[in-house]
């Protein structure tokens, strides 16, 4: 042991990883290619900046003079969000239990999981279009859409949460000779309930966001008001609606924080 031999450890600790470098190169090539495909010219960009300043200029004093229209749209959005969240959470409570592979035989859980995946595959707007075509314009289409969206999200997460529980408590309850309902109520639910509340408040929040959007395709709520204001070039009214939507969402986040704190 004669001190540290420094000449031996000259290896660079941060080695060049050629695989990573190659990946980045491919990404850069892709970006260049797709920029080309997009047809963005400097002229168009410049034009766009002019339009943007024009647009912002026309937006800037937000116009709240049609507040009654705004308010009715807002209330409809809220109603859509609340109804669809409650139905959606209720349905996914059962679907989640049925889809959990550790509680149910495979021939039950697999089809249910497929149903849940199907609910999640399509964007809510596409589902909204289909519902608008089949049940007509208005809040009903929005409610049905968001129920489907909620099932796709919460039922999946809930089933995954159930699959992670400890089975010891389930066995202990089962050993007392409890029936199926009691097993669910006293051994499964206590372990996952707080996470379920977390998912539900998150979904209420995102339903609130989405309820302001399904109106763009005619499914009720503030989105319809926004879209028609856009088409009539009432940009100051658009700004007012956007402000209201952001305020609504911040309020929703605030509320869901409170609920989460209560149920922790």
């Amino acid at each position, binding site marked *: 042991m004669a001190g540290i031999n420094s000449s031996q450890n000259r290896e660079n600790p941060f080695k060049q990883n050629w695989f990573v470098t190659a990946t980045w190169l491919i990404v850069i090539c892709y970006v260049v290619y797709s920029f080309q*495909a*997009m*047809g963005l010219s400097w002229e168009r960009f410049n034009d766009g900046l002019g339009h943007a300043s024009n647009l912002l200029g026309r937006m800037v004093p937000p116009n709240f003079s049609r507040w009654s229209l705004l308010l009715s749209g807002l209330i*409809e959005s809220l109603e859509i969000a609340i109804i669809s969240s409650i139905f959606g959470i209720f349905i996914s409570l059962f679907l989640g239990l049925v889809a959990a592979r550790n509680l149910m035989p495979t021939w039950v859980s697999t089809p249910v999981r497929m149903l849940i995946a199907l609910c999640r595959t399509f964007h809510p707007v596409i589902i909204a279009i289909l519902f608008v075509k*089949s049940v007509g314009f208005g*809040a*009903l289409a929005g*409610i049905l859409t968001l129920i489907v969206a909620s099932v796709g999200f919460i039922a999946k997460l809930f089933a995954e949460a159930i699959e992670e529980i400890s089975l010891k408590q389930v066995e202990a309850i089962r050993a007392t000779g409890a029936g199926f309902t009691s097993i669910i109520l006293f051994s499964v639910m206590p372990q996952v309930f707080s996470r379920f509340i977390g998912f539900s408040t998150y979904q209420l929040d995102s339903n609130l966001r989405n309820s302001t959007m399904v109106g*763009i395709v005619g499914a009720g709520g503030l989105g319809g008001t926004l879209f028609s204001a856009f088409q009539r070039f009432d940009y100051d009214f658009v700004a007012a609606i956007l402000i209201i939507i952001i305020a609504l*969402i911040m309020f929703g986040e605030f509320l869901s924080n409170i609920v989460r704190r209560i149920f922790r």
Partner: protein
Amino acid sequence: MNTIDHHWQRFTLKQKLSRYAVYLVLIIAFFQSIKSVEVIPEFLLDAPEQMADMFARMWPIDFAYYPVAVHDAMIETLNIATLGTLITLIFAIPLALMNASNIVNSAWCHWISRFFLVSSRSVNSLVWALLFVSIFGPGVIAGVLAIAFRSIGFVGKLLGEAIEEVNMGSIEALKATGASWLSILLKGYWPQVLPAFFSIVLFRWDINVRESAVLGLVGAGGIGVVLDDSMNLFQWDRVAMSLLAIFAIVIVAEIVVVNIRKRLI
């Protein structure tokens, strides 16, 4: 085996009351909404019939339409999703750095970054698309920018949280060697956030593939344009073709993401 150190206790009266208050408020809100929402009962009653009719019109699927219009639109959709996700990074990484309390220690910076992140998330991608369509005109550019601006909030928030969770030991070690600010960032933080970074970006890309499929409804390019056109012309067999293509691409995206994630993390 971890020992059981959980201390069981009943809820206090205040906890109980607040829980019941939440339930009560929910129930009141629910019934109030049910009562005042404008649902036409006749529409609800014949909904199953109408839906069956719609699906009957969709069948048989018009596969011949795929090479005509759907294929190019699908490629365009994928381009929108990918390019949008990449452009997001330009804005999201600085905002994430500003939002992480272990990198920037200033309340002002946190407030500014949080403002941008929250407003990016609050405005839906369709609304972003409407804005950009009115700026740049209909086309792919509006779609890419809408996807990018929508994703900033998501990527920035999650990335900021990942940065806050790094182990500060190696960073202090780097600082002690007198490394510069940039090399601390690149050699100290980056290797630790790398797995989180890729999983966030991949996750967002997966979401963006779904979202970019609908942007065409407001004129921002991609498969949505084809979907909207064929729907306005009541060509339901073509609508079914577009929906099938979207379904396929979403499934493929999910498989790709799962596989890449397995390799990387």
